[in-house]
C-alpha cells in the first residue's frame, strides 16, 4: 500500500469522526477554510501503472499550483488519493469509500474502460460527480460524468482516412478484447466502410497475452495495407517488438500507443517505426504552452519517464473544475452543470484551446497526428484544431435535457425520441 493510500486512510478516519462528532450548526463556521476535496482513483501499481502514475502527478501539480494561487473560491484543494492497482474491484471499493466516507466533492478516476464501467454505476447510485480524464471508445452519456479525454470520432475520423489515403484501403485491426477494444474496433470498421475501404481482418487479444507469433502470421496472411493496433496494457505492448523482429514492416495506426504508454521511449528502435497515432497531447508537442507545461511537470517530478496525453487531460481537468466551481459559486453538481449548459466552459490547455460540449459533457480537442520514425523520434505530419466530440450529440444524447446514464455505441445508439 502506498503512502498516499495511508494518508487517504488517515484522512478517511478523520473525516469519519468529524462527521459523526459535529452537529450541523458548526458546519458553517468551518466553511471558510473547509477544503474542497478531490478524490483521485488512479492505478499506481499493476499492469496499467506505467501509463497512469503520471495522471496522479499531473493532478498533484495542478492542485499545488491552484493552492499556491489562493485555492478555489478561497478554499484549498485537498486530494484524497487511493491506489486502485489496475483492479476493477478496487475501483468499486474505493469509489464507495471516497463518496460515502471521505465525502469528496468530485472524483477523478479511471484508466481502462473496464474500470470506468465498474465504478460509474456507483457514482450514479450515490449521486456523485466524476471526471474520466482518459481517451476511450466514446459513448458515455451520463450527467454524473465529465470526460476530458479524446473519443473515436476525434481520433479515428482523423487518423483512419489519413492512413487509407496514404497507404491503402485494406485495414487489419488488432485490438484488446474488452469493451474499449471491441467498441474502438467497431468505430474503425464503420469509418473504413464509410471511406470505401475493406477490413482485411480483425483479431481480439485477451488482456495479459504477451506472445504474438500466430497473430503476426495471421496479419501477414491477410496482407493489409496497414494495421490498426488497439492493444492495451504492458503485456500486449510486446506485440511491437515481436512484429518488428519478424519483419512485418507494415505501417501501424493507433489511438492508444505513444500517447498513453510512450512505447517509443520504452522499446528499442525501430520496433515502432511507422506508427501513426492521433493524440491530443504528448510531451514532444512543440508549442510554447506545451513546453511551459512540460517544464513545470519535470521541475516537480524530475524522474517522470514521460508526460503523456492522460497526464495533460488530468491537469487541465483540475483547472476546468476550478473554473466551473468559481462560476457556479458552488461545488454542487447541478449548479456546475448549469454553467456547462451555457456552452462556454473553455480554457487554454497545454495542447491548445479546449471546450466542454454541453450535450455530451465531453471535450473538444486539438488532435495531433504523431508519426514515429525509425529512430523513434516523433514528427507531427498533421494537426487538426478544435475537433469536437460530435457523435453523441448527433446520435441523440443531450444531457441538458435528459440524463440516461448509459453508454452507447454506433451499433447501439441512443433511442430516438
Amino acid at each position, binding site marked *: 500500500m502506498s503512502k498516499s493510500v495511508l494518508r487517504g486512510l488517515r484522512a478517511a478516519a478523520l473525516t469519519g469522526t468529524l462527521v459523526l462528532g459535529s452537529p450541523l450548526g458548526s458546519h458553517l463556521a468551518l466553511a471558510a477554510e473547509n477544503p474542497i476535496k478531490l478524490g483521485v482513483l488512479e492505478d499506481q501499481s499493476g*499492469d496499467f501503472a506505467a501509463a497512469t502514475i503520471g495522471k496522479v502527478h499531473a493532478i498533484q501539480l495542478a492542485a499545488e499550483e491552484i493552492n499556491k494561487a489562493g485555492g478555489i473560491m478561497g478554499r484549498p484543494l485537498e486530494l484524497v488519493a487511493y491506489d486502485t492497482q489496475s483492479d476493477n474491484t478496487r475501483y468499486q471499493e474505493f469509489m464507495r469509500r471516497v463518496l460515502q466516507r471521505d465525502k469528496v466533492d468530485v472524483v477523478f478516476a479511471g484508466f481502462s474502460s473496464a474500470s470506468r464501467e465498474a465504478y460509474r454505476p456507483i457514482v450514479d447510485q450515490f449521486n456523485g460527480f466524476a471526471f474520466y480524464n482518459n481517451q476511450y471508445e466514446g459513448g458515455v452519456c451520463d450527467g454524473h460524468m465529465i470526460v476530458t479525454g479524446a473519443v473515436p470520432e476525434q481520433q479515428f475520423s482523423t487518423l483512419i482516412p489519413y492512413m487509407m489515403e496514404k497507404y491503402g484501403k485494406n485495414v487489419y485491426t488488432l485490438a484488446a*478484447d474488452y469493451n474499449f477494444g471491441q467498441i474502438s474496433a467497431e468505430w474503425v470498421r464503420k469509418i473504413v466502410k464509410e471511406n470505401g475501404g475493406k477490413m482485411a481482418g480483425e483479431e*481480439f487479444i485477451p488482456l495479459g497475452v*504477451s506472445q504474438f507469433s500466430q497473430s503476426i502470421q495471421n496479419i501477414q496472411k491477410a496482407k493489409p495495407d496497414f494495421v490498426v493496433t488497439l492493444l492495451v496494457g504492458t*503485456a500486449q505492448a510486446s506485440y511491437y*517488438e515481436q512484429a518488428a*523482429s519478424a519483419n512485418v514492416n507494415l505501417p501501424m495506426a493507433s489511438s492508444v500507443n505513444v500517447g498513453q504508454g510512450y512505447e517509443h521511449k*520504452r*522499446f528499442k528502435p525501430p520496433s515502432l517505426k511507422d506508427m501513426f497515432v492521433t493524440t491530443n497531447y504528448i510531451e514532444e508537442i512543440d508549442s510554447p504552452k506545451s513546453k511551459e507545461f512540460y517544464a513545470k511537470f519535470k521541475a516537480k517530478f524530475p524522474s517522470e*519517464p514521460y508526460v503523456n496525453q492522460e497526464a495533460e487531460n488530468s491537469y487541465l481537468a483540475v483547472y476546468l473544475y476550478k473554473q466551473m466551481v468559481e462560476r457556479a459559486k458552488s461545488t454542487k453538481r447541478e449548479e456546475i452543470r448549469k454553467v456547462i449548459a451555457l456552452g462556454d466552459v473553455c480554457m487554454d490547455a497545454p495542447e491548445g484551446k479546449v471546450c466542454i460540449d454541453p450535450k455530451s459533457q465531453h471535450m473538444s480537442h486539438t488532435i495531433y497526428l504523431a508519426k514515429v520514425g525509425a529512430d523513434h523520434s516523433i514528427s507531427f505530419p498533421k494537426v487538426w484544431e478544435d475537433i469536437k466530440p460530435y457523435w453523441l450529440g448527433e446520435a441523440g444524447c443531450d444531457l441538458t435535457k435528459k440524463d440516461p446514464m448509459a453508454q452507447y455505441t454506433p451499433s447501439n445508439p441512443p433511442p430516438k425520441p
Partner: protein
Amino acid sequence: MDIATHVFSALYQFGDAFAFLVLSACGLAVIFGMMGVINLAHGEFIMCGAYVTAATVHAGLPLPLGILAGTLVSALVGVVVELAVIRHLYDRPLDTIVATWGLSLIATQGTLIMVGSTMAGVGTPFGSFQVGDYSYSIYRIVLFCAALGVLAALYALFNWTRFGVLARATIQVPHMAAALGVDTRLVYSLTFACGAGLAGLAGGLYAPTMTLVPTMGATFIMEAFVTVVIGGADVFLGTAPAGGVLAVVKSVMTSWQGQLFGQIGLLVAVIIVVRVLPKGISGFVLRERT
C-alpha cells in the same frame, strides 16, 4: 502458396508455443515435482531474470552473458528465499502457497517502487527470414532450441549426475535419503535454486521480446501452471509431453480463431486432462509403469 510453406508455418507456430510453454513451466515443474512446493512467486523469478538480463545488457554485456547473469541472480535469490521462507514450511504445503504469493506481491510492488513502472527493452537480435509469403523472427527459433536445450540439460542433470540421483532419491523417500547420509536440506536448497534459476533463464530469454514491467511475470503464469497441471510432477514424463500437446492445441486454435480461442483451448485441455488423468500425464505414465 505451396504446401511446404504451410507445413513450415505450422511447425514454426508449434515450436514457438512449445518453447513458451516449456520455458515458462520448467522452473515451476522442478520445484513442484521435486519438492511438492507450489511456488506462486514463479512469475517474479521470471521477472527478476528478465530485469537482470536487461540491466546487464544496458550496462554493456552481450545478450548471452546477460541471460546467464539473469539466470544466476534468480538462482541466488532462490537460495535466499529457500533459506528464509520455504525451508520453514516444508510440512505445511498450504502455507507455502500463501507465503510465495505474498513474496510475489512484495517483489512486484518492490520492483515498481525501486526500479519504476517500466524498464527500457534490449531489442530482439538476429533479424528475420522469409519462407513463402511469411517472414519470421530468427530469435523465436533460438527460443525453441533453448527449450529443447533446457529439457536435455535437465535430463542430463537429474539422470547422469550424482546430484541428480541424490535429488531424485530425496524426493522419493526423504527420510531414507537422510538416513543414508544425504543432506536433504542442501538438496532442497539446490533444487529450489535450480527452479528459480530456470525461471530466471525463461525471463532472460524472453526479455528481448517483451515489455519489461514489474507485472510481466503474470503473463507467464497461466501457461506455466497449465503445463504443470497437465504434465504432473515429473519434468520429463510430464512437462515435455504436456508442452507438446498444449502447443498443438494452442497453435491450432489460435491460427483457426485467434488468441482468445488459443487461451480457451488451453483451459479446456486442462479441464479434460484433470478429469481423465488426475495426476497428469506423468502420473499416468508412472502408474502404467509400476
